[in-house]
Every structure is written in C-alpha cells, then in structure tokens.
C-alpha cells in the first residue's frame, strides 16, 4: 500500500490513498470545529439528522433504499470527537466497481450522496423538518442515556471526562440530555449552518482510484461549489496535548460511583503532556505498551496472571490529548489491592524496572500492529487524520522506525511524565469502599 495523496484548497482537505488491494472503496467525510459547551449538544445531533433525508431523497426510507440499490453501499453518519474538536462524520464503504459489472458508477453516486447529505439536507423555510427533529431528539436522548448500559465503556468515559474537567476535551461526545428539550427545527438549522460555515472539511478516499490527482481536483471543485463561504476564525487549530502539571496537593481525585453491578470497574487516568507531535511520542507509545498494551505487559501479568484478580487489565494511550487510561474489572472488595498492584507497576517503570526483553517484545508487538494497519483501510485513514490534526506529516514507516529506536532509558524518562489525576471506581451497591 502506498501513501496518501494530499490536496488542499482553503479549508478543504482531500486525501486519497490509491490501492488495488481491496474489494471495497472507503470514503470518509469529516467536518471539524472546536468543542464548546454551548454548541456541543445541537452539533452532536446534526449528523444523525442527515440520513433522515435530502432534498432529492426526502425521507429516511428513500435514503436507505437508495444506498441499498448502490450494490449495498453502507453509508452511516456519526458524531465524533478528537481531542478538543467536535466532528460530524460520514463513512461509506462501497463495493469496488472495477471488480463487478453490477457495481459500475456506484462510487460517483455515493460521493454525490455524501455531499448532498452534508450540504443539502431536507428542510423547509423554517429549518429542518419538524417531524425528523422530533424523531432525532428522542433518539438522541436514548443514545445518551444508553451510554450507561455498557459499564466498562461507561466507567472509562467517566474517568477520562473527569481528567479533562474544565477543558473542551472534558465535554461529552454526544452532549447533554438536559439540552435536548429546548432544541427546535430553527435552532438546529442555525447550528447546522454555522457548523458548516466554520468547519475544516476533510475528505478521505481509499481504493482503486486510477488518476488520484484528477479525481482529487474534481472532488475539490465539487465540494467548493456546494459548501458555503468559510466564516471560521481562519486560524489553523492544531491539537495540543493536555498539559501534565504536577497536582498541587499531590493526591489524585478519587471518585466512587455505585450501580447495580456484580463486578467493580476500576479506572486510573494519567496526564502525560506528550502527544502525537511530540518528540517523546514514540517512547510514550512503547511505555504504554510495556505497562498494559499486551498480554506480556506488566498489568496483564501482575493483576491477572499473578494475583488472579481480573480478566482484563490494560492501559490505553490517547495520542491526541496525551492521556493514559488504565482499566480493569474486579471483585468490588479487592479494589485497594488492585489499585496498589497497578500503581506498583507504574512506579516500577519510573524506577527503571524495565527489562530489555519487555522492550523488545513490546516493540515487536507494536510493529506488528502498525504493519497490519496497512491491510485496514479505515484504520489507515484514521491514523493519517490524527496526524493531520496535530500538524504531523509522518508516515507509519517513520513512526515504526522511531519506535524501534526507543531505549529502556527513554521509557523510564517518559514514564516519569505520567501524572495520576483521577482514580474512578464503579462499584456495587453493597459493601464499603474506602478511599485513600
């Protein structure tokens, strides 16, 4: 697989990865604008209103049937968040037309459709269609409420949002339930027009594109014609990591929430101040891997294999905000023991208790992960997009090389940047859980 061809005109960014490896073309359209408390909820609903209909296909049913007729092209929309940015996204996967006669012309049709969804949604003189607004308000309320159903994901999200409190990163991706009631077809239309005018627009295509330059220019022309004039700040907002200042009183926040669960979900959130663009990023990537990225990692070996306390125990790095989040599921009564073992592992890394073997195994495992990305069109474009948002034009190859040059000393140095901010515990309703 080759590299992305990048074209830009003003706020429009087109990235094309020509490859004949797949039977499916992938397309992703992303509109991004800074997150704010005021706009987060109405903006989050917009992408879910899009598939309810366009001027040409004025109902959800007509939209869904049109997609099915495009040889089963899958088109979905999503409300997203990357660091301090709010995103409205459209994803489409389209059977590769060069491989099947039945699929001829499907790609063009879906490009047109995606553009239509975003720039010409169904509306009247007063705004969005009131019936669709009613329907989507109700669905959005359920969408937010149902975030509590998956306890593992819920606990992780609560921990992360608390670490980012007071920052745009600390606003929930879907917004707030209490904002929904007051939204009207008119107010949502105003939000939509503003969002469209103020967003940076990214279009990604991965697939068997024969003349990527020509196709890219054509896409730029087509989008330029339909998007309103840019009214954003014009400042290129590149994502910066959340700073990791040592906490004044030294102690992390400890939050216990009680729910009807059989298993407690323990999460620890750390700031590092290191993100994608940072020189130390490859070292942090490796450090996170040694700590909890794999079955050979410290957390898995000590929390699960040695102490037999958990089924899962891992850590995850958010490269955009520079947060490391640890998660595990345990018997509610052993919370303190689990927390102690986890913190011992972080401490061990700071003290240099990292073997050459742990380093090599982690570099091998990470290399494999990155190489596999080349077989995964959607992951490829997401990684490229994250880099773009941080102002980094670094291909996966370079990142792998840098990562493989990381030494034990680098790992120790970067581990010292981990500042524990929040311990979050979702516990059962019975029994006591002691704090610090």
């Amino acid at each position, binding site marked *: 697989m080759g590299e992305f061809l990048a074209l830009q005109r003003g706020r429009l960014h087109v990235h094309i990865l020509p490859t004949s490896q797949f039977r499916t073309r992938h397309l992703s359209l992303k509109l991004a604008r800074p997150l704010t408390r005021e706009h987060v909820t109405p903006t989050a609903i917009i992408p879910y209103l899009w598939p309810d209909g366009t001027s040409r296909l004025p109902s959800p049913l007509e939209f869904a049937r049109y997609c*099915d007729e495009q040889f089963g092209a899958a088109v979905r929309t999503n409300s997203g968040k990357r660091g301090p940015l709010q995103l409205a996204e459209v994803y489409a996967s389209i059977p*590769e037309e060069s491989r099947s006669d039945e*699929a001829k012309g499907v790609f063009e049709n879906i490009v047109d459709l995606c553009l239509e969804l975003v720039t010409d949604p169904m509306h009247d003189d007063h705004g969005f269609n009131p019936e669709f607004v009613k329907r989507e308000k109700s669905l959005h309320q359920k969408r937010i409420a*149902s975030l509590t159903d998956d*306890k593992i994901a819920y606990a992780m999200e609560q921990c992360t949002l608390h670490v980012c409190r007071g920052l745009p990163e600390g606003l929930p991706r879907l917004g707030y339930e209490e904002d929904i009631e007051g939204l009207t077809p008119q107010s949502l239309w105003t939000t939509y027009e503003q969002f469209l005018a103020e967003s940076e627009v990214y279009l990604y295509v991965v697939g068997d594109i024969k003349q990527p330059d020509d196709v890219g220019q054509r896409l730029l022309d087509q989008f330029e014609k339909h998007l309103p004039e840019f009214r954003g700040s014009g400042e290129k907002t590149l994502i910066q990591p959340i700073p990791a200042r040592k906490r004044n009183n030294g102690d992390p926040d400890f939050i216990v929430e009680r729910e009807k669960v059989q298993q407690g979900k323990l999460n620890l959130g750390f700031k590092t101040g290191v993100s994608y663009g940072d020189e130390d990023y490859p070292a942090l990537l490796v450090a996170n891997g040694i700590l909890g990225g794999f*079955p*050979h990692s410290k957390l898995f070996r000590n929390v699960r294999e040695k102490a037999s306390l958990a*089924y899962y125990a891992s850590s995850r790095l958010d490269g955009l905000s520079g947060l490391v989040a640890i998660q595990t599921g345990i018997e509610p009564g052993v919370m303190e023991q689990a927390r102690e073992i986890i913190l011992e592992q972080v401490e061990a890394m700071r003290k240099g208790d990292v073997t050459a073997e742990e380093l090599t195994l982690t570099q091998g495992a990470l290399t494999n992960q990155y190489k596999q990305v080349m077989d995964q069109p959607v992951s490829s474009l997401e990684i490229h997009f994250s880099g773009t948002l941080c102002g980094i034009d670094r291909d996966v190859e370079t990142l792998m090389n840098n990562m493989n040059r990381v030494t034990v000393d680098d790992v120790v140095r970067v581990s010292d940047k981990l500042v524990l901010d929040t311990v979050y515990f979702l516990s059962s309703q019975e029994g006591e859980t002691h704090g610090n």
Partner: protein
Amino acid sequence: METNTFPMGESVYQERLPNGLQVVLLPKPGFAQTFVTFSTHYGSIDRVFRTSASKDYTTVPDGIAHFLEHKMFESEAGDVFPEFSRYGASANAFTTFDLTSYLFSCTDNLHENLDLLLNFVQDPYFTDANVEKEKGIIGQEIQMYNDNPDARVFYELLKALYHEHPVRIEIAGTVESISHITKETLYECYDTFYHPGNMVLMAVGGFDPETVMGWIKDNQGKKTFKPIPVIDRKAFSEPPTVYAPEVTVNLAVSQPKCLIAWKDAVNEMSGPELLRRELALGVALDALFGRSSSAYQELIDEGLIDQGFSWEFERAETYGFAVIGGNTPDPRRLTDRVQQVIDEALQNGIGEAEFERCRKKALGRFLTTLDSPGYIARGYISYLFRGAQLLDTSTVLGEITVDEANREFRAYFDPSRRAVSIVRS
C-alpha cells in the same frame, strides 16, 4: 494439495495430512498480514460424550471447553503469549457453542509463529495450582458478562428457547460449575477433542501456499499421535416447542432490551442446505426489518426502537434460531408489532422488489468481508465444521428466489416456537 477457485476469485488450497489434520490455505495477494486459526470441532455444547475407549458417557462440568482454551496458553516453560510477541504476532483464542479456536495474526516470522501455534496447542500442561489460579480469572470474566445487558438478554433467550439442548448453558459456565473443573477432567476433554483428526488449521493472508503447506507438514511429521478417536456425542432430545414463552431479568439499563426469537423446528442439519437456509431467511428478515424496510422506519417513528434494532439468523448442526430486537421502552408492544409484521408476511408473502433489493445488498456486503483475513478465517472454519462452504455465499445468493424464501419463511415462523427475552431495570 487440492485447489479450488471460487467465483469471487479466491483460491483455496486444501489437504488432509496423514495424522488427520485438515489444512486450509487461502492466499490474499498484496496483504501484509497473515491470519491463522487452529480450531477443534469442540465447543460448550459438547458436554456429554464417549469414545471407543469407554463404554459409558461422561458428563463434564459446564464451561470446561472455554476453561481448557484459557489453560492451553500455559506451557511447562511458562506463559505462551510472550513467545508470540517475540515473533511480532498477536495471539488470541475463543470458544463458541461448537468450536474452540486458537489464532494469531502476524506480518513477519510466519514460519516461527506457525510452529508456536501448532506446538502449544499440541502440548497441554495442566497442574492443580495453575487450574486453581485460572478459576479467579474466569470467575471475573463470567461476572463481566453478567453485567453486560446484551450478553444477558441473549443467554436468557437461549434458556427460554431450549428445554434440553446445552446451547441454553453459558459458554463460560458459572462460577459454581467451573469450581468442579480439575486437571484430570481437562486432560480427558483434551485427549478426546484435540486429536489432529478433529482439528483444522487455516491460514488467510499474504503468503505462498506451497511453502506454508511444507512448513506445516514438517511440523506435524515430527510428532506422533494416538489413532484418531471415534467421538460419540450424546444426542439431544429437544422438543420442537419452547421452554418458556417469555423471560425477564433485572439489570441496570437505561431502557429495556427485548429479543424476540423463533427456534428452528429441524434439530439436525448440516451441509449446503444449512448455508442456503441461513441466506434465504437472512435476506427475508432484512427485507422485513432492515433499515430500508417500512417496518423499521415505522417502529422508529412510533418510538418503539432505536438504531440498535437488528435481526440475526443462526443455524448450526443441532440448533438454529432467528432473533429480532433491541432497545425498546415497551417490550410488549414491540413484540406485538414485530409479530404483526411477521403475520402480514406469512399471509401476503415477502414482496419481490424488497427481496431483490436486499439480496443484492447482501451480495455487496459479502464482498466487503472478503477484505478481512480475520473475518474469512473465522467464518470459513465455522461453516466448515457445519459441513458448509463460506465462499459459496455469493453463488447461493445469486440462486435464491423470493419464492424459495417465502416457502422457508412460512415453515419457520410458527407461534409455538417463539420466545421473548427481556432485560429491564
């Protein structure tokens, strides 16, 4: 080595080795990764069995196939996972109702990783201590699923559908049932079901089939095995009716979850027939309840469902069911409305235009899955143990007609075989 080329261009290389191991290789030119699965036709439902060596049937503790899967990753030298990391591979395993699969994916050192996989699965090492230790870990895995509403509503559904069939028992068992597992019972299951003659090795990805087949033969040629045991799984006496028409469990959820299901009246089924039924009824259900159906849009407008509403059709050798459902504020009304759609279709048939649209969509979606070596490897094995061929999907989708689907549909959706499972707070 036998070669078969399928209509979408995939070539499959197959051979049964002298020790009985079946090897299936599917090269994907241009792919960096190779995905390998080493699977035994042994899952959670295989709980009462005997071999030619024993007269009586043995009943083993619930959850033992899954427990065995966990324990295989320990060798006398220690944990096996780091060995895969050493060769840049990511390893895992999973247990279903009817199979257990060990797998890795890698982009380098395919030969070393293949040897690792074959060697660790063919070298069990269980001790009293390492068996005890695993009970805590699996206990937490069971608790994790107990907290998961999607898992709970599904397992409760199977309990409602089936009287006797062990598909009604959770794959991982319960904290109580796994407490009875010992190293002796693990060895007994291992010796019965992990003979190469009961197993399939499958590789999908960017490799040369001749070379890889050579490596596998070398590895297996150096080992000796006992003769292939004849496995006799005790037959199930499952009546056609459901065990309970409706079950409810309480869990902390934002709104109720409701699954409505029909069990297959046919107990035994395998081979091409099974794939055909799955595809015909799958397209039929998509036509009735998919995003582009009138029913889906109406149910959304009535506030009875959200975008998580979906359907699923499953057909294995000894059981099968169709499921429809998702989140709903009103399980009873949703059940009535779904039944109403089914009744209309039973009376008037599924329309040809709807069926054709969904048939083409299914074909397009199937093509997309062929871009994922992991998906192919898992799906292929699952069908292979059921006597069917995953890669025939496009051919069968090309053949099925609305008349056939309507015939199947009418025979399937009988009210006496319906059960409803609800999770609410």
